[in-house]
C-alpha cells in the first residue's frame, strides 16, 4: 500500500494510505485524547475530543475518521483545542450523575482520566442531576445509566464484535438511552449472549460486572482488538 507523508505537530510522519490521523499519530507516539474511539470497532466521530486542526481547512476534523493525506499539516494540540476539549468534558460531567467517589470505575475510568489530564478542575455549568435508573436484572452484569456518556462503544461492540445486536441507542438527544432488546430489563433480554464484551468496552462505570470490587473493574480492552484483528486478517485457521 502507498505511504503518505504528513506532519503532525511539526513532526514528519509517514503513514499507510487509508490510515486515520489518529492511527498515524499514535504510531508516531503522539497521543490525541479520545472517548468514543475503541480499537477493534469502527469509528463514529461522535465525542469530538479528538478534533484536530488541519492547515487549509477551516473546520476542525475528528482524527478518528479523517484519513491521512499527502502533505497534510496537522496540529493536535493548541490553546483552542484544549479549551474545547475541557468544555466537552464539563458538558459530560454536567449531563448525568458522575460521582467519581462512589463509582465502581474510580481509578479505571477514561472520563475521569481525561478530566484530570486535560486540566478540568471543576464544571462551570449547572449540573442537570437527571433521574436515571440502574438496571441490575442481569445475572452477571449491571448497567448504571447515570454514568453513561452515550459513546455507544457497547452498542458497536455488541453488533460488530459479538454480533448479537442486544444493545442499541433509543430515543434521541439528551433523552437517548442505551437499551437491551425492546427496552426491557437486561436480565430479560433474549438476544444477550452474556459474553461481557460490552462491559469490557465501557469507558466509564456505566456497565459493570456484578460483585467485582473497584480494584477488579479494570477492563482488558485489548481482548476486543485481538479478536477483531484475528477475525479480519484471518489469522485463525481452525
Amino acid at each position, binding site marked *: 500500500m502507498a505511504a503518505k507523508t504528513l506532519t503532525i505537530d511539526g513532526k514528519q510522519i509517514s503513514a499507510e494510505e487509508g490510515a486515520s490521523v489518529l492511527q498515524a499519530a499514535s504510531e508516531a507516539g503522539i497521543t490525541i485524547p479520545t472517548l468514543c474511539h475503541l480499537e477493534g470497532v469502527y469509528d463514529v466521530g461522535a465525542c469530538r475530543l479528538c478534533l484536530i486542526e488541519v492547515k487549509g481547512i477551516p473546520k476542525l476534523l475528528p482524527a478518528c475518521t479523517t484519513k491521512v493525506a499527502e502533505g497534510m499539516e496537522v496540529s493536535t494540540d493548541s490553546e483552542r483545542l484544549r479549551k474545547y476539549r475541557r468544555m466537552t468534558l464539563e458538558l459530560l*460531567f454536567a449531563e448525568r*450523575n458522575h*460521582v*467519581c*467517589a*462512589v*463509582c465502581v470505575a*474510580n*481509578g479505571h475510568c477514561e472520563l*475521569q482520566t481525561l*478530566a*484530570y*489530564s486535560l*486540566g*478540568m*478542575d*471543576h*464544571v*462551570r455549568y*449547572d*449540573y442537570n*442531576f*437527571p*433521574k*436515571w435508573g440502574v438496571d441490575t436484572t442481569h445475572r452477571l452484569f449491571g448497567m448504571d445509566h*447515570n454514568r453513561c456518556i452515550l459513546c455507544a462503544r457497547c452498542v458497536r461492540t455488541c453488533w460488530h464484535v459479538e454480533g448479537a445486536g442486544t444493545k442499541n441507542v433509543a430515543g434521541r438527544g439528551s433523552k437517548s438511552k442505551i437499551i437491551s432488546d425492546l427496552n426491557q430489563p437486561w436480565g430479560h433480554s433474549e438476544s444477550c449472549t452474556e459474553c461481557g464484551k460490552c462491559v469490557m468496552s465501557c469507558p466509564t462505570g456505566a456497565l459493570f460486572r456484578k460483585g467485582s470490587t473497584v480494584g477488579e473493574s479494570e477492563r482488558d480492552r485489548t481482548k476486543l482488538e485481538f479478536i477483531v484483528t484475528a477475525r479480519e486478517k484471518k489469522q485463525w485457521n481452525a
Partner: protein
Amino acid sequence: MERLKIATVWLGGCAGCHMSFLDLDEFLIDLAGKIELVYSPIADVKEYPEGVDVCLIEGAVCNEDNLELIHKIRARTKVLVSFGDCAVTANVPAMRNQLGLDNAESVLQCAYVTNAQYNPVKPKEDGIVPPLLEKVQPVHAVVHVEYFLPGCPPPADRIKALMVQVLEGKTPKLEGTQLKFG
C-alpha cells in the same frame, strides 16, 4: 512578615477532607509557623472573622446555614479554595438532587423516620436541623471561587502542593493526577 490568615470550613461533607488535612503530619508544624489559623472546625472560634487571606472550604452547599456562611466567607475572604470533591462537584451530598424537587423532604423522611431505630420523628424545632435547600450545589455555583482542589478526599501531598504555592503567594498550579476526582 505577617503570617497569612488561614481558615478552613466544613459545609455539607463528611469531614474526610479535614482528616486528610491532618494527614499533613510534620508539614502541619511547618505550617503552624507560617500561618495563623483564624477559623476552623479544629479551632475553637465561634464567628468567622474579617480579613481572612485564604479559606479552604470542605463540603457542598446543602442547607440555609451553609448558604449564609458561604456568603459571609466570600465577603470576608480574599481567596477561596474549594477543598475536595463535595465543594468542587457537590459530590455525594448532591445525589439527593436526582430525586426531584421534593428531595429534601424525602431525605429527612428516610433519615429520621424510615431508618430510625428509636423514636421515628422528623425534628421540628428550629435550630436542630437547618432547613435543607431545594438543591445541593457546589460552592462555585453560589459564590466566586479562586482555586479548586479536587479529590475525595484530596490526598495530603496534594493539599501540601497547593498550600506551598499559596504560601509563596503564587497562583497554585495543580496538574495531572493532582486534579483527579474521586
